């Protein structure tokens, strides 16, 4: 996708455009092939790149570099946190607390541990605003609860979960707490010194970095088993020859996020407010799915249901006719079965509201002008679809 097409890109939560600065930080490292695990002089540069990145990520999260472990992305980080903690209890499988709105890389890993190793699990329902309640976490606690894993910001609705409160609870009860912060990093500031969670996942491609690299923050490495054993990289916690090019890109992405996250957030919040005001005063009939207030949700995400149309058809017209990219809450699937958002379903939206939903997500390259053009087009296309349906 070309940079000039960015003004039509409203799917930042799927993946962000890689920034020019990140690209430029990656290109020179492609040719630098020395294996960071070797002991020759060329390997020093490879090691330096890796150390620099670790420092940048640590400073982005306000924590120590030694607690940052590189992975191949958010999915691996989530798998590692969940399995790494639970497989230590294999002789005595206990209880997991998670929510119904987690990303598939948490949900299916939890399901695997339940089905395969005999753990039990409580899936918390969010309220109608898309938020998991701390009191529900507290009620779900059992003597044998061995892990709490809750995401920081939901990828479909942007709704923020009460992570500081859950963290306090988990600490009081001495239960390991993992946070999937893949959607938060680069959108709001995280301060791990203040947050005190045990594990936290992030993924570079969600904040203008490359795909295929992420991190797991681990407060105490003695409590978790590696997911990938071997040659001893990453203090023997995550083996495998390092993906130097992507790690170099992550350094720049982390640095930029660290310096600019408030600025990006301001831009997002201004775009979001503007978008909501335009939608509210338009002739089309919409409902917001999940909270939209600044303190309750990411500034870059709007999930809406639009009366009288199918989200899929709207997204198709937006893209085919106007090159706008948005996401949908329900897709057709090849076996005629429903393929609808588990997040919106957990929020007890009706099927009609789900099939008529779209997710609009934007970011640092989005301007208010882009928003204005986008909403104008969206409204026209909704009206065209309603016209086709004849209602």
């Amino acid at each position, binding site marked *: 996708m070309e940079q000039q097409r960015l003004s039509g890109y409203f799917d930042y939560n799927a993946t962000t455009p890689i920034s020019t600065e990140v690209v430029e930080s990656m290109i020179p490292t492609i040719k630098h092939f020395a294996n960071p695990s070797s002991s020759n002089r060329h390997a020093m540069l490879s090691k330096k790149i890796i150390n620099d990145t670790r420092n940048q990520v640590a400073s982005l999260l306000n924590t120590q570099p030694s607690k940052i472990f590189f992975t191949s992305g958010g999915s691996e980080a989530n798998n590692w946190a969940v399995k790494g903690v639970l497989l230590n209890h294999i002789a005595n499988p206990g209880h997991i607390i998670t929510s119904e709105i987690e990303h598939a890389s948490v949900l299916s890993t939890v399901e695997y541990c339940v089905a395969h190793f005999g753990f039990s699990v409580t899936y918390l329902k969010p309220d109608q605003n898309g938020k998991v309640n701390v009191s529900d976490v507290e009620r779900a606690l059992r003597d044998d609860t061995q892990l709490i894993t809750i995401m920081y910001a939901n990828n479909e609705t942007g709704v923020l979960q009460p992570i500081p409160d859950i963290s306090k609870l988990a600490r009081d009860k001495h239960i390991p707490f993992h946070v999937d912060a893949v959607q938060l990093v680069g959108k709001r500031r995280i301060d791990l010194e203040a947050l005190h969670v045990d594990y936290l996942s992030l993924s570079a491609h969600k904040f203008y970095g490359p795909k295929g690299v992420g991190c797991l923050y681990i407060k105490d490495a003695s409590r978790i088993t590696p997911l990938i054993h071997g040659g001893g990289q990453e203090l023997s916690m995550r083996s495998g020859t390092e993906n130097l090019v992507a790690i170099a890109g992550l350094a720049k992405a982390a640095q930029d996020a660290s310096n600019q996250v408030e600025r990006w957030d301001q831009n997002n919040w201004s775009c979001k407010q503007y978008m909501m005001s335009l939608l509210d005063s338009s002739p089309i009939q919409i409902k917001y799915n999940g909270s939209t207030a600044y303190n309750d949700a990411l500034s870059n995400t709007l999930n809406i249901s639009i009366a009288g149309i*199918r989200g899929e058809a709207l997204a198709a017209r937006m893209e085919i006719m106007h090159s706008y990219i948005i996401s949908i809450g329900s897709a057709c699937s090849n076996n005629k079965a429903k393929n609808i958002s588990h997040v919106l379903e957990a929020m007890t939206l009706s099927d009609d509201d789900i099939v008529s939903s779209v997710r609009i997500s934007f970011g640092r390259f989005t301007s208010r002008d882009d928003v204005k053009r986008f909403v104008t087009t969206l409204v026209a296309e909704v009206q065209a679809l309603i016209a086709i349906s004849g209602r």
Partner: protein
Amino acid sequence: MYNDIIVDNFSAPNYVGDLETADHEIEIGNPVCGDRIKVQLLISDSQISKAVFRAWGCATSLATANVFCRSIEGQSITTISKRCTQEISSMLGELEPSQRHCLDILSELHSKLVSQLDIGVA
């Protein structure tokens, strides 16, 4: 993604409309994904002289409705009834797995048309 047939028929559907007095109406709905299509026809001498539709559904199903209308307008019921499955399948071009339910929609439109109007076929 959408093939060219779907793109054309979906982005500029030219058979959308209502007839004040239709000679015949076909309505189908997919209970799973909720797509709904209503086709109205004018018929003279066992020929479809006019076909229009209304539809609510995914891009491919809207396109399917338009493809169907275009393909039957000006044709005799007999001709239409002779279309074989393969011919019908090919009308939508190559589809992704998630779009193939629209082949069912298209066959259903055909079979409803033919069975409900079988006077003409006899």
